[in-house]
């Protein structure tokens, strides 16, 4: 994070707070609702319960039931009515309870949310934010650990972002709400309550732009390109790589559509080695897109093909097998070794 937004210290009141990712989202939502009365939050169990992950905790109490809606149990209903509310002038922030439950709403997202602006030649805007807890590693049952971001990055008319840390979470949710385009906002659920990932959030700072990537670790041997929950494991892999004598550069994409790839290209031109890390399976995915673009822009710089470390092309497995499915430190470094030895 930019230096201006990070301070050391134990101050938990005032402008600088030490927050988990989940609490940072909560504070960001709160700030967005205070700034604009047209912002409303809607979803299953978001009001009285405060959300199954407590991300909307306290918002209904403070802003009222007309701004924080406990909805009936229907994702297509949540998204579809949000479209209508947006047409009416509201700025809805929808919560999909878990990634695997977004599919009943897929029709509304692709057919209406993504297309309305183009259909009306820009007269009608759809400033909807659809928040989705995504990714695995929480030992859950089926449909609770998916990574469906590729479907939405593939859909023109949508913008897609993924935060990876509390500081980004705090700012990106507000920026997404202010954005006049519909934004799919992916949140790494396994990191919501991680106290190890707590960070100081300075609410007076100036944040990075929403649709920008960031080099989170400088290096010279190879470039790791990643986002969301995989940023953490990539940084851990880079730290371990020092012992092998390899200096890995790690780039957090942050924005999945539109992607800010210039920093990635510049990095790959320096290192000659690119490895993409995602939980989402590789076949016909965002990682495929990244590989295609890198080979196009950095062709003469590539000492090895762009390699990918991803979930396998299987349905997300039962919890006891998920650690084998998810990219981990060993698999990332094994792939880096392959790239360097090419």
């Amino acid at each position, binding site marked *: 994070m930019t230096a201006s937004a990070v301070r050391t210290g134990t101050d938990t009141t005032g402008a600088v707070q030490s927050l988990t990712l989940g609490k940072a989202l909560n504070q960001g939502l709160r700030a967005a609702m205070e700034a604009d009365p047209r912002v409303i939050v809607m979803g299953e169990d978001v009001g009285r319960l405060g959300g199954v992950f407590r991300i909307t905790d306290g918002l209904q109490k403070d802003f009222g039931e007309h701004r924080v809606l406990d909805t009936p149990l229907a994702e297509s209903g949540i998204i579809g009515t949000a479209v209508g509310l947006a047409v009416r002038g509201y700025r809805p922030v929808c919560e999909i309870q878990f990634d695997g439950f977004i599919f009943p709403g897929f029709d509304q997202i692709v057919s209406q949310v993504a297309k309305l602006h183009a259909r009306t030649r820009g007269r009608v805007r759809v400033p909807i934010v659809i928040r989705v807890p995504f990714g695995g590693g929480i*030992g*859950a049952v089926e449909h*609770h650990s998916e990574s469906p971001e590729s479907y939405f990055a593939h859909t023109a008319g949508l913008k897609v972002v993924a935060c990876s840390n509390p500081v980004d979470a705090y700012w990106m949710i507000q920026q997404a709400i202010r954005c006049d385009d519909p934004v799919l906002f992916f949140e790494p659920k396994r990191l919501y309550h991680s106290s190890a990932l707590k960070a100081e959030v300075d609410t007076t700072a100036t944040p990075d732009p929403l649709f920008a990537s960031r080099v989170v670790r400088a290096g010279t041997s190879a470039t790791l390109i990643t986002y969301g929950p995989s940023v953490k494991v990539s940084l851990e892999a880079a730290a*371990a790589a020092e012992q092998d004598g390899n200096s890995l550069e790690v780039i957090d994409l942050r924005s999945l559509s539109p992607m800010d790839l210039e920093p990635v290209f510049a990095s790959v031109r320096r290192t000659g080695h690119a490895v993409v890390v995602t939980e989402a399976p590789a076949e016909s995915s965002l990682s495929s897109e990244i590989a295609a673009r890198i080979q196009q822009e950095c062709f*003469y710089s590539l*000492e090895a093909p762009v390699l990918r470390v991803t979930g396998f092309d299987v349905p997300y497995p039962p919890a006891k097998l998920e650690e084998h499915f998810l990219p981990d*430190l060993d698999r990332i*470094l094994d792939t880096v070794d*392959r790239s360097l030895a090419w």
Partner: protein
Amino acid sequence: MPDFKSFPLPDTAEGLTEAEILAWHVQPGDTVTVNQIIVEIETAKAAVELPCPWAGLVTEIHVAPGDTVAVGTPILTVDVDPGGAAAPAAASSASNGAAPAATDSGAEEEMKPLVGYGSKAAAVTRRPRRGPAVPAGSGAPAAQVGVQAAFDRAASVPIEVEKEPAAPVPATAAAAGSPRSAVPLAKPPVRKLAKDLGVDLRTVVGSGVDGVITRDDVTTAASGSTVDSQPAASLNGVAPSYDAATRERRVTVKGVRKATAAAMVGSAFTAPHVTEFLTVDVTPMMQLRASLKNHPDFRDVKLTPLAFCAKAVCLAARRTPDVNATWDEAAGEIVYKEYVHLGIAAATPRGLVVPKVRDADRLSLRELAATLQELTDTARDGRTTPAAMLGGTFTITNVGVFGVDTGTPIINPGESAILAFGAIRDTPWVVDGEIKIRKVCQLALSFDHRVVDGQQGSQFLADVGALLADPGIAITY
């Protein structure tokens, strides 16, 4: 026999990493039953009561109310067999050959919970591997070649992906330079290099694993040192095209031709060339040469006039080091060198090649002669290595070999002077006021006027000429 079981803090809500202990409902010494509520904890989601997994005696509580505990941390220990005889160490070791109870009487069996996020703490180091971590070469090119070969061979047979071909399809021999059906194996940066140097990868034999073409392979090919010594017509694998209508033949500019042309242009239009001429009576040199032929040291060495010329150049360069220096435009410096790497221009079937005699100034006449002989043979065979062609400081171009008198040679890029050594002819010459027939040749020195002034150039040329005219002068150096 006491059987201790340790209860690790569970993840009660899909992905929790820690919890705070609120209150214990039991204490050490209490008897507990299965599912009896023993403790209350607070997580990020809720306050939860935990039931005991076993029946038995609580022996120890490991965490206190108020503690924040990571999932997986043992929170209490229960002896599930408290009534069992607590056998003393001696007795238990006598009962069976098991490990002595002294260290073992309290061995705890930690229950393996369904691991929540906390128990599987993120790894920070790599797990140990068996054998080499990465298979050498990864087999990727072999696999690719294997698949390509499979497609080539199996036109009418359903294609099966070959996982491991028995042996990599050998990179097709450079025989006849015929184009291969598959794309040559080379990494993008090597391809770019080949493109810039005008090398056709289809004619290059890859020296890398599985026939992959390396950077060195390309630079070698660019300097014309491959085995292939086919006539220029089929060098590029492309037959020159003769057009009967125009009576013209077009040959694509590639390879060494292209590289040489680029070098010439670069030199000619960068360094301000000045050429000075000197005609020398080298009869004494030729006489010395004749007499040295019978010398034991020179019996098995071919002593050419070129060797004398080379020796003269090295000696003269000591007096005028400027001709051995380099103009470094980027650094804004002239680089004076303490060594003479003498380039000898040679014509080969592939074109102009300039191998270097390294540290020529340290070689005796005999060593120079031997090295020159070897260099020329190697160049004629097309076996000059890329290393041998780098780093020259001065070049001699022996135009005399072609029966040519002199010329205006172009300086080799990276150097500041070049000497054309002309043919040695019987020529009428004035000796002591009389016309005699002498062995005469012309020297032409082109030099870079940024580095070498007229006076220095002239001095150098005169010195070379003097040494060739009267080799005895060398004794004064």
